[in-house]
């Protein structure tokens, strides 16, 4: 029995409700595809590069197919049918030809269909084999270099906008103690309906996620892992309009964790809900296969909504994210469910409230690593105070056994982190984790006391909200502003035109392969 004395029946009920609330959305995801899902399939099948204007051939090819026959059949069959009929053996060349107008697409039938599918399967299998090889290589490197010695893992952000500044900063951070490096993306990327190409130096408050940037950074961190005798993980963002493709690129370049929330794009990027739910399912299937740990984004709700009033929405979202993740084949150890230290620090007992919330997440998801996010909203330009709050955030992290600790920066309200901010922040983490290592043993929330009561209350509120959501439907609840007080109707938002309902005979070799594996 945990420290909170949660009622097992209430927990089971909440989980069942989340499943019931989520299932219709999974059904939606199973019966729709998106331009990005289809592009991801082509990427797994080996397409690469971009045209002279920087539009990836994956985009050009999917657009060409779509113009000819729509998206509802999936692009795999028509594209590999075209490969067979034209005799072209290179997907990228085919895309170039299609862009030039010299290839037309059809929905192959009968034997042609079988042949096209078989060719597509073969191509996609090569991509999946790379992902599998990367996963094995990661396992070997972990065996060789070892995992971090302590929990939580220390997660640090790099955000210069320039991959060549990012690399030395990431290596310095690893040397200073970071277990996980996240390269933040440029502000605009999530709304781009294509993945930029090549090494980039021009991001704002973040660096573009590109396959080449992934490769460069992973190689640099492999060096660091070797140097430090500790496998340093790399994180990026499978979110925005290209979520599925970025997941695929992450698998292909051996990224280790990906931000991948089922609702973040809807709420914070105004991306169409259906687009998002379809995309996230596919991307999670890829992550499951690649052995990537996902990080969900519940922390974000508390930047726009109040962290006490809306604490239960975090719990609800975690339960939904858990359901969607399991359904897509992810194991518990891959669920870096998000939550955050965002209560107004001027509130009496704010620290104990944080402990209650953090412990609730811990006890609801005992086998998930959990990602613990630092204060941001109540950080100010008073950097001295900021470093102090980060220390208490770190303390909650160690007292409640969080799995992944995103390191807070004293300059949160000022600038994207400076080199020295990271050093000061890591020193803070080290002090707290080291000085308070075993303190959790002495932390016994008073039975029936403030912390237990608060945790029970949040769980009850979460269950109530899940009941409402289950009754209304998740899409309606989102439209009405259930999360982060953002209202997002299902028929609005960006990227809706990139969604298509499956036609009869829709074929997606990647899904087939990945779902086969998931069973």
């Amino acid at each position: 029995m945990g420290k909170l004395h949660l009622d097992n029946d209430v927990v089971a009920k909440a989980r069942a409700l989340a499943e019931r609330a989520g299932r219709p959305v999974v059904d939606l995801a199973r019966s729709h595809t998106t331009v990005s899902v289809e592009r991801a399939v082509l990427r797994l099948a080996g397409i690469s590069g971009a045209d002279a204007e920087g539009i990836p051939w994956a985009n050009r090819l999917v657009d060409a197919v779509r113009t000819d026959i729509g998206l509802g059949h999936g692009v795999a069959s028509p594209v590999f049918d075209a490969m067979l009929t034209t005799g072209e053996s290179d997907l990228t060349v085919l895309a170039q030809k299609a862009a030039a107008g010299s290839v037309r697409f059809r929905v192959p039938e009968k034997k042609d269909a079988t042949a096209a599918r078989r060719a597509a399967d073969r191509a996609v299998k090569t991509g999946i084999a790379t992902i599998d090889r990367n996963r094995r290589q990661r396992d070997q490197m972990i065996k060789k270099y070892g995992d971090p010695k302590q929990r939580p893992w220390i997660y640090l952000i790099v955000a210069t906008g320039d991959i060549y500044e990012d690399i030395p900063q990431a290596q310095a951070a690893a040397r200073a103690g970071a277990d996980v490096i996240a390269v933040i993306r440029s502000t605009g990327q999530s709304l781009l309906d294509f993945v930029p190409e090549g090494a980039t130096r021009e991001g704002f408050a973040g660096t573009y996620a590109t396959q080449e940037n992934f490769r460069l950074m992973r190689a640099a961190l492999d060096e660091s892992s070797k140097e430090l005798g500790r496998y340093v993980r790399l994180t990026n963002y499978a979110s925005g309009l290209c979520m599925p493709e970025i997941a695929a690129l992450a698998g292909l370049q051996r990224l280790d964790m990906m931000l991948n929330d089922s609702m973040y794009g809807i709420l914070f990027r105004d991306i169409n809900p259906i687009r998002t739910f379809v995309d996230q399912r596919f991307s999670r299937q890829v992550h499951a296969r690649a052995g990537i740990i996902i990080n969900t984004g519940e922390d974000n709700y508390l930047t726009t909504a109040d962290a006490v009033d809306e604490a239960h929405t975090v719990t609800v979202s975690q339960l939904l994210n858990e359901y969607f993740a399991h359904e897509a084949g992810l194991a518990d150890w891959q669920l870096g469910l998000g939550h955050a230290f965002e209560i107004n620090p001027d509130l009496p007992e704010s620290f104990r409230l944080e402990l209650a919330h953090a412990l609730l997440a811990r006890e609801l998801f005992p086998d998930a690593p959990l990602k613990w996010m630092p204060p941001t909203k109540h950080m100010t330009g008073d950097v001295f105070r900021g470093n102090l709050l980060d220390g208490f955030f770190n303390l909650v992290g160690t007292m409640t056994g969080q799995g992944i600790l995103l390191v807070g920066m004293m300059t949160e309200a000022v600038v994207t982190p400076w080199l020295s901010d990271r050093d000061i922040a890591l020193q803070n983490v080290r002090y707290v984790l080291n000085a308070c290592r075993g303190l959790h043993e002495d932390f016994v929330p008073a039975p029936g006391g403030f912390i237990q009561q608060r945790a029970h209350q949040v769980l009850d509120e979460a269950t109530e909200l899940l009941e409402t959501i289950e009754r209304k439907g998740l899409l309606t609840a989102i439209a009405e502003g259930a999360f982060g007080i953002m209202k997002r109707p299902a028929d609005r938002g960006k990227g809706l035109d990139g969604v298509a309902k499956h036609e009869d005979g829709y074929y997606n070799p990647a899904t087939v392969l990945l779902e086969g594996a998931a069973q």
Partner: protein
Amino acid sequence: MSTIVRPYGDMTGDGMVQTSFTLPIPHDKKAEGAALQLAAKMGLDPAMLVHAKQMGEGFTFFVVYGRVNHLVELDKVQVVERDFPLLTAKEVNTLVKKKLRRKLSVVGACIGTDAHTVGIDAILNVKGIAGEKGLEYYRELKVVNLGAQVTVPDLVEAARKEKADAVLVSQVVTQRDAHLHNTREMTAAFREALPAHKRPLLIVGGPRFDELMADELGVDRIFGRGTTPREVASFLVHKIIEKGSEKK
């Protein structure tokens, strides 16, 4: 109060300040000397180097304390003081109704790739901030809040469609001067799209703007950290109704 003051550590006139910075050199005696040289150039004399720590291979972080001899001349301080009366919501509504005789139209947005809407929402949405309701709450204002990551062409289009008297733009991301680039792009687009007399009042806001840069950026006003809706409403009334909008 004297018009000349100096920083205060623990004694009037002691001139004491704290500073910290990183230099891209490894830590050794020479690096400490380099830090003191920089402190001296900033005017710290004497400067006390109280902390130095190497980070990674080629960087060192320093904390320096010391006395600066600079004088702060209060009579030469430049600020954008509020040069209009602060009105209540009721006064704003009354003035708009009586003098403008139609609703005052406001269009707001976060432009470029910036998705930080909390600031513009605080000004526009009913919920408001710091106990004050936002402009939506003002009966005589018509508010359209376009939200995040609006492109400049979409913003101009919306302003035209809504016959905006004022366009309110928020910019929070400042890395590589993103906020300045985006603001300039926006004012240029409005100048191009609309003749001076049809152009709405252009207002930008965000926590890291320098309020003195309005002219340079081609906007009518900049609002910084801690702005409240009332200040903005009062400014609108002052500019559009009281003085007649002097547009750029």
